[in-house]
């Protein structure tokens, strides 16, 4: 499991998650992910490299989306064609709460005002 980020410009932060975000793996990235969502108003979380998404990981995404929203910004998810991630998000209804896109550019357009 991994986490990396890129500040594209002053407005947009890309966070890339990868690997196995089971409960144990999610605990490992929770703190850094939380910090990254506290300091940017437009965040796209790329999940296309994730091969396992637990409810713990979804909880971390929810917390981050709420934090960005409280600052007047937006967080979107880029899932690509990752069927496991898409199914997990659909099963929990989270794709109805956090804007979710197959295309990364569409996700960035959605959060940059």
């Amino acid at each position: 499991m991994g986490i990396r980020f890129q500040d594209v410009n002053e407005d947009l932060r890309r966070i890339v998650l990868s690997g196995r975000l089971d409960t144990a793996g999610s605990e490992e990235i929770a703190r850094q992910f939380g910090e990254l969502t506290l300091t940017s108003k437009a965040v796209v979380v790329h999940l296309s490299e994730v091969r396992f998404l637990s409810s713990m990981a979804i909880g971390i995404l929810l917390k981050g989306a709420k934090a960005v929203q409280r600052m007047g910004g937006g967080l979107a998810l880029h899932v690509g064609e990752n069927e496991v991630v898409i199914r997990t998000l659909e099963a929990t209804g989270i794709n109805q709460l956090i804007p979710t896109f197959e295309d990364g550019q569409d996700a960035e357009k959605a959060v940059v005002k």
Partner: protein
Amino acid sequence: MSPSAAQPSAALTIRADLWEARRASDWLAAAAHAQNVPPDQVVRLDHCLDEALANVIRHGGPTALSSPVHLQFRVRRQAGASTAELSVSDAGVAFDPSAGIAATLPPASLADATPGGLGLLLIRNFSDDLSYRHSQGRNNLTITVSWRDEPSPTPQS
């Protein structure tokens, strides 16, 4: 082959902690591979296993954390259809993940959303059947997935 042929079962005992849950996932993958369970079915069981063990660890209480968790995996094959059963037995607080799941609906808005209950939603969605019993101080949860077997290629004459 008999109408319903059970393959030899695999078993593992772990401690109730998250890193042992990783070991359990590896064990499940190996056991399923050995019995030719399709990869997409293994993904479903793997998610259910992670969520079930997370529930035990987070909500099972001190007895759950100090007692072993027993896992068992079995595949049953019938003509054209197969099932895989994963059983999780723990000594934690009595809890039936198969009950009350219907009331665990996705939240209506981001503001309303909390992580609570998401694991149960995943277990329900990724399994085809759940059965639960509490016996001799242990929770016994069986998670079942089912699939249609691909027909064998017709031999060329």
